[in-house]
């Protein structure tokens, strides 16, 4: 068998996944922290202040990566949920459900930092603007997925219901992405483009990319740690969990 396919099959085994997650989560966290530390230092002390917004524009370096993560994590959660629904792979269910609190955290950061940035720039903490409102709905969707997953006693049935909600909610992602173009919005248009001309001056771009990559590593660490904890809960009573608990005692 192809070694990559064999590895994927192995990863579906709960004890193997536990060892894998225990081994790699700390490294992902560490890489995430280091990358974000460099990004934060550059964002606060190296890049120049914006000519219009002054130093408040430094909030961009946490707001934008978090906003991107809020969308990317949701998309990934829906993919895992889809795979779990079609092929009934338990690990995909676990991973989909582990995505939800991390995505909710990044969405909460996006909303809070946007609000803090909005106060000095727009003169208000909140406005029912299309971008802000759709991002708030995204937070509610994440909370709905988390709530549904924890609502029932049967974990697998709850995960299927929550996964279905995650898949349906994907329709919101393009609405969030294009809300600033489809409607008159207080929120500014797209500043940073991965492909094409970005309106962010190149002298201010470096910390953003450190933060973007750093948040990805952080997410990987958090996903592995959360999935590992859920995997242990589902496997409670199994021999390998007992041995693991006794080894750690």
């Amino acid at each position: 068998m192809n070694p990559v396919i064999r590895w994927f099959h192995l990863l579906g085994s709960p004890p193997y996944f536990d060892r894998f997650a225990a081994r790699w989560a700390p490294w992902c966290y560490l890489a995430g922290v280091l990358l974000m530390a460099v990004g934060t230092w550059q964002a606060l002390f190296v890049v120049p202040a914006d000519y219009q917004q002054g130093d408040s524009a430094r909030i961009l370096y946490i707001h934008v990566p978090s906003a991107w993560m809020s969308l990317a994590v949701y998309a990934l959660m829906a993919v895992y949920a889809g795979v779990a629904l079609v092929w009934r792979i338990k690990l995909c269910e676990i991973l989909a459900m582990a995505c939800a609190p991390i995505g909710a955290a990044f969405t909460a950061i996006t909303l809070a930092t946007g609000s803090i940035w909005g106060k000095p720039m727009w003169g208000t903490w909140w406005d029912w603007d299309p971008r802000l409102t759709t991002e708030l709905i995204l937070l509610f969707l994440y909370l709905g997925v988390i709530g549904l997953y924890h609502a029932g006693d049967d974990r697998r049935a709850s995960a299927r219901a929550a996964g279905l909600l995650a898949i349906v909610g994907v329709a919101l992602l393009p609405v969030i992405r294009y809300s600033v173009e489809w409607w008159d919005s207080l929120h500014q248009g797209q500043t940073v483009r991965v492909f094409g001309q970005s309106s962010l001056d190149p002298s201010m771009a470096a910390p953003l990319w450190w933060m973007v990559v750093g948040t990805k590593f952080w997410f990987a660490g958090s996903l592995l740690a959360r999935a590992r904890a859920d995997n242990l809960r589902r496997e409670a009573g199994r021999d390998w969990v007992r041995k693991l608990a006794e080894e750690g005692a």
Partner: protein
Amino acid sequence: MTYLPYVIGAYAVFAVVLLWDFLAPRLQLRRELRAARLRAARARKPAATAGELSR
């Protein structure tokens, strides 16, 4: 630095939420392992309990 309280506030929110995101799964993991240890301890006990009851 202009707008300093806003910048500090935003970065503080970011740090606090990520700290929660780091601690929550660790605490959950600790709970699960502790529950597994207790289950294992309970599973070893019943033989003695059954013996006491039969006396």
